[in-house]
Structures are given as C-alpha cells and as structure tokens.
C-alpha cells in the first residue's frame, strides 16, 4: 500500500478529516461515493469484475477496482465481508480502502481479512464532504485509534 502513496496527488483544495480506524493501513486513490447504503456481497458488486450490479444504485455498471469507496453504512448480505476479501485478495477487482459514516461490523472483518484500511466516525460527514473523483489519502495506523483522511479536490 505504501507504494500507492508515491503517486503524485492532483493539485487542488485539501480537506483533512479525522476518524477512527477500524482496519489498519495506508491507502491513496480516487474516491467513489455512494449516497445510499451499500454492500460488498457478490450479488451487489461482482466478484469477477468489481462492477456494481444492483439496479438503481449509484455508479451502476462501473467498477470499484482501485477506488476508495465511501458509503453511509452497509446494506444486504453478511457475505459482503467475504466478497470484499475475495475481490481484493483473489480476483484483484477490489477497492483500496473504505470510508463509512458508521461501518457495520461485518464490513470491518472483511476489510481486516482483505488487509485494506477502513475508517468511520469522521469529524465531518464523509458522504457530503468527499466527492466522487476526489483524491483521498488514508492513514490508519491502528484499529480502534485515530485515523486521518486527506481529501484533495478533483480539479474542475
């Protein structure tokens, strides 16, 4: 994950959020923000391609691969935990990190198994503060402890 931090961030306004790390790690990538509850299960996000399958969801048909995925909290099957793990570790179509308003416990366990950072309870609402396409860097050293989320606005 440290490697990805060497990618030069686009120039633009920076906003820093402070939250709680639920799964430790560092990550940087482009944000993909969902306005609604979201789930990682294979029926919502394809295990074989990382594509959003659910009718009516934001970003329908797009892939989560390499994104920092931001959503309010979970919806749908507990298999989201293992499908997240699978997409990151096996099929390699997974996200780089997740940020939630309040992360549901089975998403925490999926992120831990996938070894990607997960952050929630930020001091500003991540759903309205982070926009799809923003560059986001996460530093989450220890589960249960403080994590920082640095947002660089996408150049207009």
């Amino acid at each position, binding site marked *: 994950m440290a490697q990805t931090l060497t990618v030069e961030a686009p120039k633009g306004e920076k906003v820093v959020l402070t939250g709680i790390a*639920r*799964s430790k790690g560092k990550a940087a990538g482009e944000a993909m923000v969902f306005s609604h*509850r979201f*789930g990682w*299960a*294979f*029926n*919502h996000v*394809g*295990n*074989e391609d990382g594509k959003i*399958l*659910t*009718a*009516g*969801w934001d970003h*329908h048909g797009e892939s989560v691969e390499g994104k920092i995925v931001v959503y309010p*909290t*979970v*919806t*749908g*099957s*507990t*298999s989201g*935990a*293992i*499908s*997240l*793990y*699978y*997409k990151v*570790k*096996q*099929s390699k179509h997974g996200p780089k990190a997740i940020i939630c308003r309040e992360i*549901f*416990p*089975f998403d*925490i*366990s*999926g992120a*831990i*198994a996938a070894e990607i950072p997960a952050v929630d309870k930020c001091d500003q609402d991540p759903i309205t503060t982070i926009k799809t396409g923003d560059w986001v860097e996460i530093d989450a050293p220890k*589960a*249960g402890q403080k994590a920082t989320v640095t947002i660089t606005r996408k150049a207009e």
Partner: protein
Amino acid sequence: MKLTKFQQEMLDGKHGEAKKFCMDKLTDFGEAVEAKEMVDLSLVLCGCPIYSKNPRDPKTLEKLNAYDIGHSRLYDPIFAMKDAHVADETGTVCGGDPYFVQFDKVNETGYPWNFEIPGKGSFKVDNEMFQGLKAGYDKQMEHGWLPWSSCNPYLNTRIPKMGEYCASSESSAACYINTVLGARSNRESPVNTTYAAYTGCMPKYGTHLDENRAAKCIVEIDDEVRDNLKGMADWGALGACIANKAENRIMAVLNLPITKMSAGATKNLISCASPGMNDPMLHLMGITPESPTLEAAFKGKMPKNPERFKVTMEDITEMYRYLNSLAPAPGPDGAKPVDVVIIGCPHATLDEVREVARLVKGRKVKPGVLLWVQTDTPTYFMAHHYGDAKIIEDAGGKIYHQTCMAFNPFRHYPKNLTVATSSFKYVKLCAGFGAEGTTWIYANPVALVDAAVNGVFKPTARWDYWSQPKEKRLASESVQPLYDGSLPMVS
C-alpha cells in the same frame, strides 16, 4: 479484551495451532469493535468452502470468480493444520449455509445446478467446482462440522435458548435467534464465523449487548393488515414494510396476528432483517421473549412519546408493486411468461413445503417451466416421509436440500429468465444480479403455483381486490361478494 483462562490458553497455543490461529484473528476483530470480553457460543452458522488444490491457476481462478462467494481461501490455512477441530467438544454446534448442489443429485436435471429451458438455454454446474465443494464438505465433516447446509438449523437441529450466544452469518437465522428464540447473535461476518467455529467463542459486541438490542420506535400493524395477511409473500412484504418504516432502527411491533403465524410466516416476516435492516432484531410484542412489555423492548429507556408508525394494507400493496418493479418481468399484465418458480429463501419450512404440495396436487407443471422448492435437510426428509415431496415431484416440480439457487453462479444462467418467487430476500438482493435480462416477480404461493402450471403469471383475485384504491375497495364490498369468506374483509 479480558479473556477467560481457557480463552487465554487457546490464544497461547496450548490447545493447538488451529485454535491459536483463530483466536488471533478474533482478537484483532475484537479490538476493532472495542469488545471487552468474549462469549461462549452454542451455535455457529457459517458456510462450506470450495477446497481447491490450485486456486491460483488461471483457469481455476476464472471458475472460482463465478462460484466462490469469497470465503473458501480463509479455510486453506486451517485445513493445512493437523490438529484442527471445531469446538463441538465444548458445546458449540457448527454448520454451514446452503451452497450450489445437492450432492447425491449432481447429475440429475431440472435443478438449479443442472437444467435446460427450451428456447432460453441451459446451465450445468462445473465439475471441478463441484469436486472442490465436495472436498471442502468432507474436510469440514472431518473437523466436526455438521453438514446441515441450511439457512435454518435453529428450527430443527440446534435450537438456541434464551440467554445463549450464537454466531450466524445467515442474517435471517440471526434475526430469528434474537427475535423469536431470545438467544443472541449478530449478523455475523463469515470471516468471523469461520474462526469462531474452531474457538467456540467470539468477541461480545453489537447485538450481543443489551444496549444494541433496544427498540427505538414503534411500528403498529393496522387491524386490516392483521386480519387479512394470508400468503407467505404477504409476510415478507409486511417485514419489508416494518423495516422501511423504522428506517434501519430496531422497532417494537404491535398488533401482529400471533395465533395465525406459522413457522413459515414467522420466518418470512423476520427475514426482512437482511436486506431490509442491518440489526437482526425485531421486538414482536407477544412473541419476543425478552420483551414482555414495551418498556422492556426499549430496555427501560422508552421516551414519553416514542416515534410511532403504522403499516396499512396500502403499504403492503405498495411493497408488492415496488418489488415487482425492480427488474420488471416482460409481457402483458395478467399473462407474464415465467421460466422459474422458486419457493424457499430462506429455506422452506415444512408448512411452506406442504402448502406447495397442497396447491400443486393433481396438477402438472407446464413443460419448459421449472418449479423449485428448496429446503433444509430434516424438512426434505420429512417431506419425503410425509408424502409432500412425492406430490410435488408427481406434478413435475422439484424439491431439494443443501442448496440455494442464488449460490449457484447465477450470472452464468441463461439470459432473459423470468423468476417468480415468494421471497423478499431474493427479489431485493438479486434484482440486477443474474444473467442479462433476468427479471423478477414477487407473489404468493397460490399465484406462483398457478404460474408454474399455466406458464404465465396472473395475479389472484385477492390482489385485484386489495390493490384498488381504498375508497373503491370499500365501495365494491356492497355490490360484490368477498373473494374468500374465511377471513373478514374489513375488521
């Protein structure tokens, strides 16, 4: 996290490599959710892995991408350990959700793992994946897992009691355990249940804790709803409406027709927990053991005027409309062609199986249409013993166990199938999933069995009645006989 002597010994490796490995993983999770201690488990409901010798081989990986829900590789390190055994010796009964075949019928046709629909195409389970699942199943048995492959072992295999703790990755089971049995389970991550099976304990958090089980609002069932729910899909729709009204909060539910709720009705009602709500708990007043009073449902913190919502028949019919609009089936109203009629998500209870048998008795499923009833192992054998299975099979339908259609590589089914079901979970979770052009119909078993026999879906007269605007509906009472005299139309 404070551990007991035995838990600490497991973590220290005194009870073998597997228990140490799993305790390490669960301790990590416990820190993330800020748990203070662990609880002993009476039931673990997890899943069976596809045990693959070369999961990284590109051809195998391509298949796993379609077949593996994602949990299989978690088992690899445990399966490689010599001393691994689940914690059944200390009282934890472990088993898995259904997966994609009934082992002894893998080569028989007309089932979710092997079928053909003329004009649409065919599907047959991949042999390497089947062998992998069988290897995972055998290995689990060797480790002391019970091979129930079911959504509802809580009904007939290990029935948790009030005060016990469970870890269920099957959401509907977790909700039934909390709501009806009074034991405590989170909607557990299958990552955690894999490990918890071997340790017999897991961090105490979430729905294990009193403060996370408290009702936050009240949902009241309108008398008209209470007196007129009839079909299994009605119960699913009611659960969905309750969950919608409460907006993802735990609620106390008032005015349920408790004496009319069969095992199937109750299961379908509480199956709203996923995908309708996140916390697997409803306080069904009169049923939920820990909630003899509203005050108890709110865990002693009931506000003076708790938020209160009502579920009306209009809400129920609107839920039917919504579910039928997610991936709408093509064709004219009253004659939408169907390919698959499926009952049993979560796995059908005996009363659901018997209802299908009653409805299909002496009739024939239209050639080219598949009628599938999926159930758990004890119910499958009961249905054979009691004669219901024979009735369904004589009519051309199929009944099977160990399996769920949605755990087949459903995206690789033939395109443009129309699937009709009484399962809220299926429609809500699968609309958009599946092969291109897959569409869904949500209806009661009466209409579903008719659709299997006729090849086209037509709503019942009961639906025609209830789906009218309320004033029109009430006005029609004076000039039209009731659709069914067995229950009052209006209370």
